[in-house]
């Protein structure tokens, strides 16, 4: 190959890379700027959303937020629902994922498609259907209805992560335990489980995030006493939007940041990309 051609390649590559780097920088700004703006607004002391340059900084709305039983109640409910639904999702999902990954049997692909279906159905359709279903069933315990709904919507995401994790786990380790005389259950609990811990943590965070963000399904199932945090936040939007909504969203931003860091630490964002793409 001539030197000229090589030089040409290098130049073209350089030009391309400069544009790409600039674009990436711009994209990071595009993603981060709205988030920062929201956080800055949450420290405004005015009673309305005014222009950002004349902000009077204070913790006024943070105090109001902490003192508001309406929001605190919502946060507590959201955490209770999120954690319960996540734990259930993990238990149900793990036994399902284990069978899917380990064995081949008739109807397997249909089973997988079915389990992923809740991720495809629009939230409002599911919420509307569950509203009727629970009313007909006579199930008036709102918190239980919401937990069941969240179990349904988190299951596909938990499953996806668990299936990917189990696929990445070297089966021969488990087989070694079996050969050495462990029962199947003991091999799973003492050998497999500790090895896929990071995947389980990632699955838990993923499910919890889905549960914490849901509005479309939950909005149909709440009542005056039992509601989740995002539903509470959204009701304040119907009146004039006040900075207290920005405080609530900032709290969620901090939680999101913690979740990303936790996934990065335990599972690695790199591997998580692959899991996400599986859904598609």
């Amino acid at each position, binding site marked *: 190959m001539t030197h000229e051609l090589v030089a040409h390649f290098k130049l073209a590559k350089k030009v391309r890379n400069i544009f790409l780097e600039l674009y990436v920088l711009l994209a990071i700004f595009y993603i981060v700027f709205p988030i920062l703006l929201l956080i800055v607004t949450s420290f405004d002391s005015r009673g309305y959303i005014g222009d950002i340059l004349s902000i009077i900084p204070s913790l006024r709305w943070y105090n109001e937020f902490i003192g508001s039983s309406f929001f605190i109640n919502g946060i507590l409910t959201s955490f209770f629902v999120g954690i319960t639904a996540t734990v259930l999702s993990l238990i149900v999902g793990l036994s399902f994922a284990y069978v899917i990954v380990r064995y081949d049997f008739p109807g397997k692909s249909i089973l997988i498609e079915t389990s992923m279906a809740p991720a495809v159905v629009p939230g409002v359709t599911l919420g*509307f259907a569950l509203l009727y279903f629970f009313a007909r069933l006579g199930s008036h315990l709102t918190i239980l209805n919401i937990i069941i709904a969240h179990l349904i919507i988190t299951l596909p995401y938990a499953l996806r992560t668990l299936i990917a994790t189990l696929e990445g786990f070297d089966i021969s380790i488990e087989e070694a335990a079996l050969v050495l005389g462990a029962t199947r259950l003991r091999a799973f609990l003492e050998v497999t489980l500790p090895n896929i811990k990071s995947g389980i943590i990632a699955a838990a965070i993923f499910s919890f995030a889905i549960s914490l963000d849901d509005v479309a399904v939950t909005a149909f199932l709440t009542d005056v006493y039992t509601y989740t945090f995002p539903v509470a936040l959204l009701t304040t939007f119907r009146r004039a939007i006040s900075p207290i909504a920005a405080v609530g969203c900032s709290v969620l931003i901090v939680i999101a940041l913690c979740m990303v860091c936790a996934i990065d630490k335990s599972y690695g964002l790199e591997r998580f990309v692959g899991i996400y793409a599986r859904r598609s």
Partner: protein
Amino acid sequence: MHGTLNLIRRYILCLPALIILIFFFAAPIFQIFIMSFHPYKGPMEVGEKFTFENYISIFTRSYLVNCIIRTIRIAACSSIVAVIMAYPLSYYIAKATSSIRRKILLFTIFFCFFNSTIGRGLSWYLILGSKGIINLILTSLGMQEIRILHSELAVEIGLVYVILPFAVLSIVPSIQKIDPSLRESALILGANEFKTFIHVTLPLSLPGISAALSTCLAITLAAFVIPMILGGGLVDMLSNIIYIRMKAVLNFALGGALSFVLLAASLITMYVIILPLRKVKWT
């Protein structure tokens, strides 16, 4: 004998998930599907007779037809824009040599991914509003304020921001899979960077692009929070109509029919338009 026992054990382990899905997911949806073929008879009640009148009345009421068209238009516009915006970012994540900048981008994208939808909507409310950043810049330049909030454009801008991380993450693996030697051979054979991209990289990443498009369409067709915040009741999408109009009067006949139009729209985009294009499987 041992074989059958093992087979049964496999099904039993699947059973909890399956029972939950059938009982609390498939059954309720099937129930309102049935109701959508019966006439409305008051809150939570439907008549006996089998009828298509709910579906007919959807397509004869102009506000519902407009809403369906608007929903599809907003979903299509925002999904296409998001996928175009996402592609270079996915390319960067898949190919970047600098691990630190790549890590920062990846982290930012996941941060956006896990950020609440309401928060993302509120952020853009602060940017697009009458006292928002855009109007602040315009007035400081001596120009007139513009009204973007509560318009279709506002909803689309918000949705693009919401689905961008989904699009980026869907495209990355398909670019990672491309054999770098293919690109090099095209370059050696005399194609320039642009031509190589158009004829080699882009076609090979098509499965990722269609996966991204279908994910984005599924999310935007079902959008609920963003049109609520940024549309302010003036740009209602299908989900909003179902929630506002049908929940209030508990009309499960028409509401059920509307839910199914929405579900059908999502499924059609997911399986009919997109699926043949991609070769990615669940497992």
